[in-house]
């Protein structure tokens, strides 16, 4: 009888192991088991309490199982309950001993007291021992027909418990049908509610395998059933009402009259004291009116007041949950709260998580009329002592500026932040000023004047430093000192720890050079030299690339590095509207709080950063197939179309299909414009690039695959053109990726050095490299490009890294982490 491992683990070190105590209790229980003297029950109670308290703090008390069962012959209901609790906890790990308890539980199920019958039945169903299910069917069947509603209520949930232990037993005994009968006929509302809960869960789980269950699940949403529930809604407890309202939200009424009837019937639920009921009602109203645009707007008006009440009443945690929902609504209908913005002013003592959501709300509701007030309020927070709060507020001001047309006043405010001379304020503001300038280049003159006064020594945060450097490069002709500031930064190259900053420094000095060559030439030389010697792969490659570009042709270099720019009109939305709709469908659930659809955090394959199932991990590629050349024009096509077409073409081009999924460039947000233009220019160069391609060879070497390192001229690649606008968000990528047939696979084991090289070059921390344990890798290549996959395991999470190499371009390894599918092609 192995003690349950988990209970030992959870004993915190500060608590006693309890071995001595347990054997002590065991002795005493044994003495009491047979005794019938008065006062025995009190003594037993004390002992049982002790056992339960040991159990609670994590001491393993499974060894007293038989003694507990022996002592359970009692009429004292408290003793019984404690015993049931104990048995429920340990039966799972002691199936043999659990058999002992079946007897007395079954006897209690026939007790004349309905309370005891109910308790016994509940405990019986909570044993969770698969080979004891046969003993469950009988008592459950009688329980469902019991004259007392308490027992029926317990039995209804008991069926669900049985289903989770053994689905087949539950289905064979035809319990769902009995539940359905009970649900539609019982006069006790709680019994009905429990039946509904059980049936929803059982049929929901069965539906994927059984057509009948799917049909039954549909009947729950049929008109008679829904009306039955609606007519009885006031009988239900508040929690049961939530369940019913949730069901009604899925109902599709036949016409608009019906919709109005349902809404009229349930409108008073918006006045319910229980916020959960109110939210459930709101969900139902929103779902029912989705198809009727004007009524939908009226619904927004109607739910405003109850929602604002929910925000301001209750604990901060409740406010947090409600505010998440408000945020979702305001994204869909920004107008609804635009006149109530004052409700989202932060209180000084509120927890940060509430304040943060309130700031997001303020940003979202800002419009022409209230911007001034909101920004004034936000500026108050920016001066806050609480640094995260100050940062968030500044970000909020920036977001509002990016939303509005009239940014005049806001820019002034932002520039005032820079004069506050607080490091975190300056840092946050710089990042924002950079974004603002990308959208409103006309403000450059005012901004540059202020930004020019900032000493780069006062800016330490990488993001802010990168922003400052970007501005120095971009507005080199307007800032007198730009080349010299950059020069001093380059002198301290070695002290700069952030690769992002160094990358920006390279680009900025290039831009500066192209505009003010005489002043910058020396600094450029120093920067390129430092970049070439840099240990960071990306920095090294960029320096090398600039160097070659300049050597090749300065005009071309200018077209690549510093082309005329267009102002960004809209910054890319991080979430697709499809996903937003899905979240909206799951209103009143965790999805809204996490801001992602439920399949992303409940399904196994989505959970964690790209968790892979075992079958996919053991990819084995047929190398010969992999050598098939991908026709260049395939790559040209828009990746989305391509993905659609691949499924049609899969028979013909079995092997090459997978590749198409990876041509989905989505750019690093901060460099979006530059990157896309640079890339277009790059890829459509008419002349073939210099013949020596050390980059690709370096990669082969890095992989440690033992390929010959002899320099061989790469084949002249066909004109390759990428769609500059192609964007594939992580989720649709994942969906498509799963749709694709497994075309070809290969398993190659690599030597660890090779791997860690790649990992280093990918810019990940070395800790990541060290944590490589089991590893699968596959590489697939054609003359134009190579695809490399690494599957790694760290802790419980799997990581899939994907590298895409164009042989003529510099390599870039991209990590898929936290589902962010980032790719840059330089």
């Amino acid at each position, binding site marked *: 009888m192995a003690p349950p491992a988990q209970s030992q683990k959870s004993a915190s070190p500060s608590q006693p192991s309890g071995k001595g105590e347990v054997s002590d209790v065991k002795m005493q229980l044994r003495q009491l088991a047979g005794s019938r003297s008065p006062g025995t029950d009190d003594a037993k109670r004390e002992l049982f309490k002790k056992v339960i308290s040991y159990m609670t*703090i994590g001491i393993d008390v499974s060894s007293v199982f038989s003694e507990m069962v022996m002592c359970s012959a009692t009429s004292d209901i408290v003793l019984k*309950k404690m015993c049931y609790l104990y048995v429920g906890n340990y039966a799972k790990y002691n199936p043999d001993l659990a058999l002992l308890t079946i007897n007395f539980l079954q006897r209690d199920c026939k007790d004349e007291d309905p309370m005891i019958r109910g308790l016994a039945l509940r405990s019986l169903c909570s044993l969770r021992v698969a080979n004891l299910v046969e003993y469950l069917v009988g008592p459950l069947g009688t329980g469902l027909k019991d004259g007392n509603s308490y027992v029926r209520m317990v039995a209804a*949930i008991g069926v669900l418990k049985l289903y989770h232990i053994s689905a087949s037993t539950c289905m064979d005994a035809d319990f769902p049908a009995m539940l359905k009968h009970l649900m539609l006929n019982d006069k006790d509302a*709680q019994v009905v509610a429990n039946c509904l809960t059980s049936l929803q869960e059982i049929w929901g789980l069965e539906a994927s395998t059984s057509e009948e269950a799917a049909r039954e699940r549909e009947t729950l949403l049929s008109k008679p059933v829904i009306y039955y529930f609606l007519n009885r809604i006031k009988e239900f*407890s508040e929690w049961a009402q939530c369940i019913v309202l949730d069901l009604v939200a899925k109902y599709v009424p036949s016409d608009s009259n019906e919709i109005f009837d349902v809404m009229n019937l349930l409108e008073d639920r918006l006045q319910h*004291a229980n916020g959960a009921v109110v939210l459930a009602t709101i969900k139902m109203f929103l779902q029912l009116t989705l198809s009727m645009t004007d009524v939908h707007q009226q619904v927004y008006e109607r739910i405003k007041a109850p929602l604002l*009440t929910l925000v301001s009443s209750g604990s901060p945690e409740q406010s947090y949950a409600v505010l998440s929902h408000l945020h979702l609504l305001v994204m869909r209908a920004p107008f609804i709260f635009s006149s109530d913005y004052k409700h989202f002013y932060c209180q000084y003592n509120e927890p940060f998580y509430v304040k943060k959501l309130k700031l997001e709300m303020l940003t979202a509701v800002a419009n022409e009329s209230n911007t001034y007030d909101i920004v004034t309020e936000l500026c108050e927070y920016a001066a806050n002592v609480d640094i995260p709060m100050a940062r968030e507020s500044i970000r909020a001001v920036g977001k509002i500026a990016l939303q509005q047309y009239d940014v005049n006043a806001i820019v002034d405010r932002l520039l005032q932040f820079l004069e506050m001379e607080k490091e975190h304020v300056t840092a946050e503001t710089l990042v924002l000023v950079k974004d603002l300038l990308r959208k409103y280049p006309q403000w450059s003159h005012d901004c540059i004047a202020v930004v020019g006064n900032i000493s780069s020594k006062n800016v330490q945060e990488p993001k802010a430093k990168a922003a400052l450097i970007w501005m120095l490069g971009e507005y080199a002709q307007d800032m007198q000192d730009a080349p010299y500031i950059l020069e001093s930064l380059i002198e301290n190259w070695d002290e700069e720890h952030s690769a992002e900053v160094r990358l920006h420094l390279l680009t900025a000095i290039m831009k500066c050079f192209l505009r003010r060559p005489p002043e910058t030439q020396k600094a450029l030389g120093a920067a390129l030299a430092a970049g070439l010697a840099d240990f960071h792969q990306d920095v090294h490659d960029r320096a090398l690339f600039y160097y070659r570009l300049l050597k090749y042709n300065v005009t071309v270099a200018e077209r690549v590095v510093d082309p005329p720019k267009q102002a960004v009109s809209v910054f890319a939305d991080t979430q697709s509207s499809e996903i937003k709709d899905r979240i909206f469908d799951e209103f009143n659930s*965790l999805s809204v709080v996490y801001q992602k659809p439920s399949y992303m955090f409940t399904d196994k394959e989505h*959970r964690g950063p790209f968790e892979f199932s075992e079958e996919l991990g053991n990819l084995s590629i047929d190398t010969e197939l992999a050598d098939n050349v991908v026709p260049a024009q395939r790559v040209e096509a828009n990746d989305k179309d391509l993905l659609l077409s691949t499924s049609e073409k899969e028979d013909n081009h079995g092997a090459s299909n997978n590749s198409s999924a990876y041509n989905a460039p989505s750019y690093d947000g901060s460099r979006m414009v530059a990157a896309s233009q640079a890339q277009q220019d790059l890829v459509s160069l008419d002349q073939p690039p210099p013949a020596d391609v050390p980059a690709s060879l370096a990669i082969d070497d890095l992989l440690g695959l033992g390929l010959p390192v002899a320099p061989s001229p790469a084949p002249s690649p066909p004109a390759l053109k990428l769609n500059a606008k192609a964007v594939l968000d992580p989720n649709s990528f994942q969906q498509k990726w799963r749709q694709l047939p497994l075309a070809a696979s290969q398993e190659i084991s690599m030597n660890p050095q090779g791997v860690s090289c790649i990992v280093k070059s990918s810019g990940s921390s070395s800790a990541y490299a060290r944590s490589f344990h089991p590893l699968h890798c596959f590489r697939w290549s054609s003359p134009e490009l190579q695809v490399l996959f690494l599957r790694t395991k760290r802790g419980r999470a799997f990581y899939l890294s994907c590298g895409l190499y164009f042989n003529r371009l510099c390599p870039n390894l991209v990590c898929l982490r936290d589902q962010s599918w980032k790719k840059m092609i330089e």
Partner: protein
Amino acid sequence: MPVAASAIYFLNLRGDVLINRLYRDDVGGNMVDAFRTHIMQTKELGTCPVRQIGGCSFFYMRISNVYIVIVVSSNANVACAFKFVVEAVSLFKSYFGGTFDEDAIRNNFVLIYELLDEILDFGYPQNLSPEILKLYITQEGVRSPFSSKPVDRPVPNATLQVTGAVGWRREGLVYKKNEVFLDIVESVNLLMSSKGSVLRCDVTGKILMKCFLSGMPDLKLGLNDKIGLEKESQIKSRPTKSGKTIELDDVTFHQCVNLTRFNSEKTVSFVPPDGEFELMKYRITEGVNLPFRVLPTIKELGRTRMEVNVKVKSVFGAKMFALGVVVKIPVPKQTAKVNFQVTSGRAKYNPSIDCLVWKIRKFPGQTEPTLSAEVELISTITEKKSWTRPPIQMEFQVPMFTASGLRVRFLKVWEKSGYNTVEWVRYITKAGSYEVRC
């Protein structure tokens, strides 16, 4: 799916498990360790009440010195889960005589396990109403309402009430003296700018009721809210009496209130539960009477001296008075010494919260006491950064005053037996978050 809690844990601040109840097998048994290592022992604690670890989501709330953690593995209804915890806590409080903390849990853990068994089954919320649960789970131990001995049967058909339609009231109650106590409790939230303009102001109020009534009484409550009065005058075709009417932004009611009648007739009618309960909650943003005005002037005189002058004006009736008035005026961290002059009450410097705390036990209406203080600061090298001033905060209670102007016009009680009742009404206005920037 509403809650379907897989497990619920009660932990103390050190992370020791006080109560641990596993409902479903879809989460591992070591969830509490996950909570401890990933939330409690990190800086994450308190940054967000909902966290995902692995495939499970953790909802946690701190209540006095206890953390209550709910673990779910499905896409659960967050609002419902938090509401459930709040309700469960108030249920425990009603069992423990109003306190809920580590000691109360340790002393009553068997009772808590019993209750947890009843209020959640397989993770789904069941009955949480204290009135009903107290019928068969008592502090002395469990009494079975169904036990065969007639002496042990205070309520013959308790089962119906365990799950039945009028879940909040049992039949057969008898009181010698039939009394109803109404408490109208309002809290005023204010945010005022340093220039004296009101940035945000609202009142959240609740009507608490204590009922000691026999039988199954039907109650009707009349307030001076605009819509209700208009409706009434329509029905009785008589013009509304002059007098102050108020506009309620939003109202929510206890489940005993007949919401259909409220929507159609705008009357609050209900069969009350026995004992104490919260009848309704309301929110008002228009026409709020602020009980206090705060007029601060804070001058920084050089690097080491500050002059603080605060005048507090009470703007309610001269015959009324406020109790327990506390004004907290923030000062910089490096405050060394403060000299006070107050015209009323007492003031002192509290370094642990960096505030001057000015307390006035009894504060009559239409008065304006002042505080003037000279603050000496320690000059530090790093204080180049200017001091950002947190807002002045106020606490108070004003009995017999409502910031919203709400009044109870009548409370009618009907019962079959037609007994006489005594009704008591109290009003009180408290400070919610009453902040004045300076």
